[in-house]
């Protein structure tokens, strides 16, 4: 219960829910509203967040073990960090018929760290689904076509494909706000002091919730150039 309450306190998205129940008293539907809005919000939040956690928990196929590190450490170890948009993803068996690989191709929109690379980049990651067969993949987020992400990349492997520096920290999701049209980094990050773009004033010590994309990129450049 303590953990659930902790999540609720940090949750700013669902603050104004009201909870309605219906009964059929007197042969007609009556809408009942909890008079205590705090209780209504609490119950609604519990149900919404619980459903969310259950969905997060669904379709679990990840299977690796790794060392812990902060996003800042991941950034420092990366040879290249790029802002990129996924343009295609295809899973197929290798020529030997022994493994399924997924090839994810990105269009590079901005280079945050490292030398400007090609316009496009393709990652080859083990795992994927071909027909009725699934080869479970490591702990890498599923990236959808047209999704914009920040990629932390290491050296190329023998086959010539770049590696992800970190499975969890190595792909940061970006969400575009429908109202403002601005991009926000929504994957939690750790260890990177966040500044407003072109400002020396830190917003927070470390970032653990969504933040404007341009502020994050500026902060990432500041942190990795030190």
């Amino acid at each position, binding site marked *: 219960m303590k953990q659930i309450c902790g999540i609720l306190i940090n949750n700013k998205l669902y603050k104004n829910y009201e909870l309605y129940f219906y009964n059929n008293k007197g042969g007609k539907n009556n809408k009942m509203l909890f008079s205590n809005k705090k209780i209504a919000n609490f119950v609604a939040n*519990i149900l919404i967040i619980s459903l969310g956690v259950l969905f997060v928990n*669904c379709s679990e196929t990840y*299977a690796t073990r790794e060392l*812990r590190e902060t996003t800042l450490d991941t950034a420092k170890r990366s040879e290249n960090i790029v802002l990129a948009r996924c343009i295609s993803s295809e899973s197929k068996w290798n020529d030997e018929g022994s493994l399924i690989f997924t090839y994810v191709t990105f269009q590079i929109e901005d280079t945050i760290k490292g030398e400007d690379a090609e316009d496009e980049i393709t990652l080859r990651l083990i795992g994927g689904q071909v027909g*009725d067969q*699934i080869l479970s993949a490591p702990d890498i987020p599923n990236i959808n076509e047209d999704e914009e992400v920040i990629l932390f990349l290491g050296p190329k492997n*023998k086959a010539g494909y770049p590696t992800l520096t970190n499975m969890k920290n190595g792909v940061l999701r970006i969400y575009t706000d429908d109202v403002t049209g601005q991009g926000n980094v929504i994957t939690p990050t750790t260890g990177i002091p966040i500044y407003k773009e072109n400002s020396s004033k830190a917003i927070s010590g470390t970032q653990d919730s969504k933040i404007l994309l341009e502020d994050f990129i500026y902060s990432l450049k500041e942190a990795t150039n030190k």
Partner: protein
Amino acid sequence: MNKIRYLTICFFVVLLIPSVVYSYDILNTQTPSDNFVFFGWPDPPIDLILDPGTLGGSDGRATVETACNVWNSVANTQQLCGNLFAGSEDITVDNFDSAISMNDGIIDVIFDETGAIIAEFGLSPTITLGLSSTLVNALTGEIVDVLMVLNGSLLSSSGSDLQSTTVHEMGHGWGLAHTPIGGINNASTTIGLEPIDPIRIPTMFPFNIPVNDAFGITLEIDDEVGISVRYPRN
């Protein structure tokens, strides 16, 4: 009166939910008909074929045998680990794609001495301790084969224990997923319970245990319940 009744119902729903969320998990996928199927071997015990190369500079067979004993010792659970066989050729970055067989129902264990095979899979060998890739029938969840890769190049790195990693990856080989229990520091973005005693962190937690990674060699109650539910003895 109705408000009290509804509040009471909600209260009990809330009480039930945490017990669903915070526990072991079993690898699973969603079928085209929107059902969820859970991964598992249809008929254990399962044999393993071991890379004849070295692991961390020494014979990796003993490490795998110990992991087998750990999983085979869980009460009220079927024997999962069968015979261990030695492969015919050292598996390296030059031959891994032709040397392994993913359709024979025998778990392939690769000792990735340099981390180069992990890099071929698109991952960083400086942080990935090991991985298990499970080939399953997407409609039934039945495990067809498993590839288990252990990174021998991180043996000297601080805070990691190869034996713990082997037990962990073997857990994936049986179909167990990661547990959220054990989120003990801010570097982890994984949802977890309140900080717990490191010695109590389940083996199936996805990260090493910096205080003493050898704590991961023994299973915790969360691991044992997960495996015994998936493979009950009777």
